[in-house]
């Protein structure tokens, strides 16, 4: 808990909150261009949010407080994850309060809360989305933790700062098979946990093919704004974790304003590039059948396990 940490944490939360919609805008724009369309422009998600915040919130009949609080919880968990993760600076804002597991658990907490809210409406689509989302999350958990395991073996700790520091100290590590396999595994987890193609289609209008969208069908106005902001932030956090764990260059180590600025800029560039790449890749993909998703996750789990064993047996 020091000056770097506080400053960095605040900057990170602001950066993720303000930048996540822009990230979504960039991804939509890339997709539009690849489809030969002009696209609404990068700022469109922010315009949508501004409008949603001014619209009237709606409480569907028979829903409880949990339904109204869920968007807040969703945003809070994601924001705290963004505050403790080493995006701009390696020193975490709230001291040694959280490591990679805590971050994963926080994001899972958000998912579970939204699923409960969706069940609370009592609509069939809500229950369907909740059931699917929770299933995918449960199956993605082993991959997530085991690849975290692989990363922490190199650093000797699950602390985010320690992992990033170790990589900064010895950049060649990134090119070890263990770390590359872990990177692929975490990439698949990112796709599954943020509901991108081929696991879930974020732009679908068919309720029967929805996973995440089906849970938010009843939300309107500011509640919907929070939910959409949170899912954009979630994507931003996952991509940021990928970036900082496997390409931690530019992360500030001192509280100097310049260093922090460089760190922020580097973070924005890295996440932007990752997002654009993901959006471009999605153009080439079709959505998987729901019951093919376990295959994808089993494969990523195998890669994560290989990463652990490789980082033990092939310690370069």
């Amino acid at each position, binding site marked *: 808990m020091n000056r770097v940490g506080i400053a960095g944490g605040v900057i990170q939360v602001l950066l993720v909150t303000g930048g996540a919609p822009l990230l979504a805008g960039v991804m939509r724009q890339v997709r539009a261009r690849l489809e030969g369309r002009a696209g609404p422009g990068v700022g469109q998600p922010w315009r949508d949010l501004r409008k949603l915040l001014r619209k009237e919130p709606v409480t569907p009949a028979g829903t409880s407080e949990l339904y109204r609080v869920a968007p807040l919880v969703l*945003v809070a968990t994601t924001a705290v994850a963004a*505050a403790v993760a080493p995006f701009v600076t390696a020193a975490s804002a*709230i001291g040694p309060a959280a490591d990679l597991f805590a971050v994963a658990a926080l994001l899972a907490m958000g998912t579970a809360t939204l699923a409960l809210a969706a069940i609370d409406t*009592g609509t069939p689509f809500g*229950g369907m989305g909740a059931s699917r989302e929770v299933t995918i999350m449960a199956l993605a958990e082993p991959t997530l933790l085991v690849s975290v395991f692989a990363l922490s073996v190199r650093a000797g700790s*699950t602390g985010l700062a320690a992992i990033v520091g170790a990589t900064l100290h010895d950049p060649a590590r990134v090119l070890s098979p263990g770390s590359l396999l872990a990177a692929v595994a975490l990439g698949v987890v990112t796709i599954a946990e943020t509901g991108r193609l081929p696991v879930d289609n974020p732009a679908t209008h068919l309720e029967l093919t929805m996973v995440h969208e089906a849970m938010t069908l009843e939300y309107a106005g500011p509640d919907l704004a929070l939910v959409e902001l949170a899912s954009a932030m979630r994507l931003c956090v996952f991509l940021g974790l990928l970036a900082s764990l496997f390409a931690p260059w530019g992360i500030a180590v001192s509280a100097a304003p310049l260093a922090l600025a460089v760190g922020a800029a580097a973070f924005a560039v890295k996440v932007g590039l990752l997002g654009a790449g993901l959006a471009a890749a999605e153009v080439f993909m079709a959505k998987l059948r729901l019951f093919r998703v376990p295959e994808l996750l089993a494969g990523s789990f195998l890669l994560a396990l290989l990463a652990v064993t490789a980082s033990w047996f092939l310690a370069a």
Partner: protein
Amino acid sequence: MNLAAYGLSAAATIALAAAIAALVVPARWRPAVSGTGTALAGLAGLVGGAAAAGGQSFAVALPGVLPLSGVSLAADPLSGVFMAVTGGVAVSVGIYAIGYARHTGTGPVPAAVLPLFAASMLGVLAAASVPTLLACWELMALASLLLVLTEHRRRPEVAEAGRWYAVMTHLGFACILAGLMIFAAHAGGDSFAALRAGAGRLAPAAWGTVFVLTLAGFGSKAGMVPLHAWLPRAHPEAPSHVSALMSAAMVNLGVYGIIRVDFGLLGGGGARGWWLLVLALGAVSAVYGILQAAMCGDLKRLLGYSTSENMGLVLIGVGAAGLFAASGQRLLAGLALAAALLHVANHAAFKTLLFLSAGSVLRGTGIRDLDALGGLRAPMPVTTAAFGWGALAASALPPGTAFVSEWLLVQALIHGFPGGGTAAAVVLPTAVAAVALTAGLAVATFVKAFGIGFLARPRSDGAARAVESPVSMLAGMGLAGAACAVLALAPGLVLPAIARAVSATGLAGEPPPTGGGLLTLRLAGVAGAVSPMLLTIALLAVMLAAAAGLRAVPGRRARRAARLWDCGAGPLTARMEYTATSFAEPLQRVFDDVVAPETDIDVSHHDEARYLVAAVEYRSRVPDRIEHRLYRPVLAAVGAWGTAGRRLAPGSVHRYLGYGFCAVTVLLIVLAVTR
């Protein structure tokens, strides 16, 4: 005599007094007497256990109380921790029982047995010699059996559950008896001290036999797969406060036995293979238990399977501790054992809460089937909140209790990786994966249990007519919930005691495995820290900030109530809601090969044309596969033996006398030969 001793003797006296009183007082007062007695006994046990865990240990030998070898009692930090947990559970269960029993009505016997059950568990923990342990163990088993059978007149399935429980628990008792007898015979003495001293003299073969026998006996009590079959049967059928007492306190004694005997007395040494076995069994129990729970539609059966899962996690910790100790990593062994003990405490807290609120649901609606529940938050707000808090605690998400202990467990597993050699490099990642899958499925399970069971709209008349429970029951839940909160936010409070208990096993690292004060949990020796309190504060702060931000939006509009969006068609009925079965369906498909669900579809046709379908009937259930594949054959074999044996008893007196005569002569011949 110190505080620990006073506490235990007080617990015993109160329990006896309450039992006698419950037999004599009029039925009107019975619930109050028995419940209060249990609560007070539990309180005494809690105080005594806390004192013992705080370092006050004592040992007394009372010769002549029990024939042959007297009773010898002792308490050290290890048993102290378990005593405190048991006592704490007993307190909230006792208070809850007052209202619950008043609702269901209770006969004199169950009312009298309840406090004795609590006391007998404390007795098991205080036992310091094999005979004492066995006596208290048997007393506890009988008491719990009587309590399981409380409602056998009203519901026939109770009797069957009781039969399963009786058989399993006595098979377990036989294993423990045999194991400890062999141990005592080789060690030359039946007091724990003598056993510890003599453990070195055991030949590897004898060592292994004792280990396996005690592991099987204690493991079956802890609901370890594949010896878990009694657990998901007995827990749903027992009255809910008894389920809580069994599921949150009694199963812990199985773990206590494994730690005490196999860790402490057997000296933990031996081949690493034995501890790998414990770890593997723990992993299997965890994954299989939570998988069955995720498929389960019966609220209390679901909780029973989740108990089996949590004990599996604890056994993973114990097994890992043994593995590390056997390979000389004492510090990590301490860490893993501390994680296991912390998880025991956490599980006791949230499982009490969950079972008590499940009982409150049962009382308010008369329904256990999740498919028929739903819509309870309006009529039963407190119960809903309690179950929600318990579900959060059980699903290992911050700020829940299980998050802390599972975090510790994973830390121990990960840091054991580098030094462990090839075996560790192969086993530990798999163990971490098992823990992770368990955690993920636990989230799914408890989202189902809470969301489908309590939220949305009622799916049956019983659920629609739900009523909130009386104050005493709510108070019992409140205590358990408060315990969850403390354990979740300030684990630093209990960790010193757990550290003392760990070093009391004489195996683990001397330095306390954890430190960092109340707020932060910092691991000594290995790098790693987490602070549930800070995380929670940060979460609340951001939520408040976000809410304030929403209020500050210029030109925001007032909230409007509207009907559900039903796609413009008619109103959505409760039959359109997702049920527990449909919620679990994707998981059931994914794990089709593991759980092997039974589904059958009957299509009945019209008489005129068999092309016209009159009705399609679809039935699906998820049987306990291990029970089917493992137990049914055994039971069939036993049955066959029984029928075969009947031919020996045709009813002629001469035949029977002849049996006796042959036995005696054979015995004499054997003696003559061996002499």
